[in-house]
């Protein structure tokens, strides 16, 4: 099969939701709606503070199907909103693509993304006389070229390739790791593991390798929920771009079964940073749960 055909027949696509300044107070609930949508996986969340809202709005809509002149009046309200936006990049695992519109502006979009953004708008768009206004709190992508454009606007020069990155075709690994060809699966002691934890402020932070017991994750499991909650509040959607939440972690800690059934190759990923010492690249939450449960050694994938 040639690559064009493969591209056409693939089952998933990437999308984004952009929460405008008027939706920021509902950020958590909006995330909750997206999180609970079946077949949508949140890959990256981030705050963005555009220098000029007007210019940012123009950039966002420059990849829309209708010329910006047509959207000017519809987006005027955005100039009055807080100059901050929240972006949620997702993997849409079962897109339902349809054609919408007529004539020159006929375009393809995903019904699923449309229905999620409509649900968010119904709940959080400002209301006048009991009716939903068209001052949308959320904007969503229609196609992947818009996602690519948005990532480039945010400064990711590779655009959508950032999200499409498959570090290794055999091993389940998050998109943000660099590509690797070799790895070793072996059992190691939890004492050999260190986790990178962020220190400092949201704007000026550094990574520090600490033992598992000293992570906010382990503290959370031990009953000190504040440490983890504050950690997320401080760094989430900034330096921490993955979709973490207290509720999700609580659910994971309850149901987690390492390498069971369909997760048989979802290993904790580590890298050896000193002989016999490993740093966790993906899986700090899982490592903390295993340690908290008293599991002293477990299989990991050591990436070269």
């Amino acid at each position, binding site marked *: 099969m040639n690559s064009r055909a493969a591209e056409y027949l693939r089952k998933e696509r990437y999308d984004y939701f952009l929460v405008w300044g008027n939706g920021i107070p509902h950020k958590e609930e909006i995330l909750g709606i997206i999180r609970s949508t079946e077949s949508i996986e949140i890959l990256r969340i981030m705050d963005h503070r555009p220098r000029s809202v007007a210019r940012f709005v123009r950039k966002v809509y420059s990849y829309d199907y209708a010329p910006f002149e047509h959207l000017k009046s519809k987006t005027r309200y955005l100039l009055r909103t807080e100059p901050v936006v929240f972006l949620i990049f997702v993997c849409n695992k079962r897109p339902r693509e349809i054609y919408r519109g007529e004539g020159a502006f006929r375009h393809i979009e995903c019904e699923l993304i449309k229905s999620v953004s409509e649900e968010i708008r119904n709940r959080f768009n400002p209301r006048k006389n009991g009716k939903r206004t068209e001052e949308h709190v959320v904007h969503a992508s229609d196609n992947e070229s818009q996602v690519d454009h948005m990532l480039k606007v945010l400064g990711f020069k590779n655009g959508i390739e950032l999200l499409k990155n498959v570090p290794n075709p*055999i091993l389940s690994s998050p998109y943000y790791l660099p590509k690797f060809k070799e790895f070793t*699966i*072996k059992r190691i002691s939890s004492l050999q593991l260190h986790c990178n934890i962020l220190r400092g402020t949201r704007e000026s932070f550094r990574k520090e390798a600490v033992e598992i017991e000293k992570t906010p994750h382990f503290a959370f499991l031990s009953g000190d929920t504040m440490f983890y909650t504050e950690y997320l509040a401080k760094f989430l959607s900034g330096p921490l771009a993955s979709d973490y939440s207290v509720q999700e972690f609580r659910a994971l800690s309850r149901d987690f079964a390492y390498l069971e059934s369909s997760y*048989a*190759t979802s290993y904790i990923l580590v890298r050896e940073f000193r002989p016999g010492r490993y740093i966790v690249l993906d899986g700090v939450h899982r490592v903390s749960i295993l340690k908290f449960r008293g599991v002293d050694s477990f299989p990991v994938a050591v990436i070269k």
Partner: protein
Amino acid sequence: MTDSNGMGFSNRLDLDRFFFHVRQQIYVIVKLGDFPDYYKGGDIDVFCYNKDEFAKQILNVGNWYLDKGFEIRVTDEDESHACVDFYLDGELEFRFDLYQSLPRYERIRLKQHYIYSVIENASVLHREFDGVQYPIYVPSAVDELLLRYVEYIEWYELRPDKVKHLDYILNAVASDSTRIGFLDKLHLYTELPSSDFRDASHHRISGFGRKESWTGRALSKLLRRIPKVFLRRLHRVLLVLPKRLYRPLERYYENHVSG
């Protein structure tokens, strides 16, 4: 357990366990050998449609061996080849070589889609694991001959023991039907490379299906082009030069002689 020469099999991994687990996959074990017995450091070549999925299934079973002190090293060689190696105490115990397309042979050209023919025409052998019967897939009789032939051609200069494949083929093609089937498929899917291509392969050191590097291919292409380019230039010079010499003579003649 020992083989017919009294050499001991290792068998620390239960190959039946692995192939029972991949029974839903579409694959062919290229050289069955003494399956499920194997020597320490042995390997098995598998042709399959999806080497990544196959490797995942191997890892799935491999997790079971991690408790027994094994380490699994996985190398994603390229888009169509991956190795899953099981190590015990730092020594290679067994390797699964997974091919999604044919390995590159240097002394014979094999059409790439032959791999699909091998997989689709596979023969089924029945084995048992944990009291449950399951199938393993091996090349059909004709493909077995063809693959052995390729192996022989590829290696006979460096590995005289590969003559065993030729003996096997000669025995097997005693009957007309097998011989015709074998030759038909051989002619359909293979081609002998040009002599300079074969000469180049004499210099190889080792490596079943080792790929000629991109630089090597580009360089040899360039070298092949040089005489062509030179001849083309020479041809042009020979065509143009007489005209250039002739024109001044012609002009001189027009001005001085005929005038």
